[in-house]
């Protein structure tokens, strides 16, 4: 019988190895898998990481705490500068963290491409800007595009609302955000969920992330 649920938080995050690229869900606080992030901070092997996430954390919680613990070599994100994002700002000014700034939609689409087997795609977003400097461009049917490549992810840490034992997931409102595409993009996807139901309790028409994209989940 397939059952992807676990209760061993430290074992779960031990799947993150040194140097891994780790995608972390969330748009600000909504959808941020804080329990997994906190556990990851305690994982000694998790260092020198590249993280892919929309924001760079606030105060000293969640992603900010991960940064503060010195686990992260590079961050790929769209909006690192938020209210109270002093941990990131301090590291950035000291040159202790590398930043790859990506327009938010290109980040989402590059994650999808990674999960969808697309080798690269032409996007209009960013054309003619500093964020497309040095990138291949092409005019197609009168529109200018930039060629963007998939973001390959080793491990995704995401937060969902409800799971069944197959790993089928639903999300809660705008906490959905990057969860589905990060789950697609990653070799290993770990979800923290608020509720676990029997197989068959989730309406197949309303499952957002099919279990094929989820390796293991843990109930908060």
């Amino acid at each position, binding site marked *: 019988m397939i059952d992807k649920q676990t209760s061993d938080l430290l074992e779960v995050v031990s799947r993150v190895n040194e140097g891994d690229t780790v995608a972390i869900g969330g748009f600000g606080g909504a959808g941020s898998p804080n329990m997994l992030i906190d556990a990851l901070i305690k994982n000694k092997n998790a260092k020198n990481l590249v993280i892919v996430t929309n924001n760079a954390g606030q105060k000293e919680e969640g992603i900010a705490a991960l940064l503060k613990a010195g686990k992260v070599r590079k961050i790929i994100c769209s909006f*690192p500068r938020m209210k109270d994002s002093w941990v990131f700002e301090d590291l950035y000014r000291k040159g202790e963290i590398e930043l790859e700034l990506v327009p938010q939609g290109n980040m989402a689409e590059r994650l999808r491409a990674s999960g969808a087997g697309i080798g690269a795609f032409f996007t209009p977003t960013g054309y003619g800007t500093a*964020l497309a400097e040095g990138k291949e461009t092409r005019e197609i049917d009168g529109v200018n595009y930039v060629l963007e490549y998939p973001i390959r992810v080793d491990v995704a840490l995401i937060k969902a609302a409800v799971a069944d034992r197959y790993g089928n997931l639903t999300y809660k409102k705008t906490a959905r955000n990057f969860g*589905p595409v990060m789950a697609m993009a990653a070799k290993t996807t770990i979800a923290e969920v608020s509720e676990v139901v029997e197989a068959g309790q989730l309406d197949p028409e309303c499952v957002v992330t099919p279990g094929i994209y989820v390796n293991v989940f843990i109930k908060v």
Partner: protein
Amino acid sequence: MNTEDRSMLAARIAGDIPEGAYVNLGIGMPTLVANHLGEGDKEVILHTENGVLGRWIDAPEGEQDPDLVNAGKVPIKLLPGAAIFHHADSFAMMRGGHLDICVLGAFQVACNGDLANWHTGDPDAIPAVGGAMDLAIGAKQTFVMMDHVDRDGRPKIVPQLTYPPTGLGCVTRIYTNYGTFETCSDGNKVRALFVNPAVSREEIVRSTAVEVDFSGI
């Protein structure tokens, strides 16, 4: 701009948005436009980049849910008829040109529609782009909502951007406290569509770094 001017500007923009339009209101001043929509019978559908299409209001005290926020991370309350989707679907919707109107703030707009609103170019600034570049090029029409001049009184409508661009040739209209202006892809001017009666044409000409064509009003 003082609060009253901002509110009047927001009302002017809201008045130009037709019923049934799909609209994204950028973070900051553009969110004020929402206060002037949904009055009366005119239904306008909002889009927020973090995955909602529908109608909503700021969540009242006691009904705030940290998992239901808009792009500015402000808690909202959905009205009936909304749809929720993930980030790739949300930006597909923007990039695909399905939104009718996007309203954005700006540091500068060039008269050909080039937009600068993501970075001042200050080498000490922490860069952050969010959805700005996707929004700039994603809607059928991009409206800019801004002060006509910057804090030092310098024109923000310019012949060529001096700030780093967010998108090229994307702005169709510029709404300022002085008036409403149309960009012009092939010229060195903007066309006035409306002039604030409290501001003289001379003042507008003086505060705009390109020619202003008043012939249409």
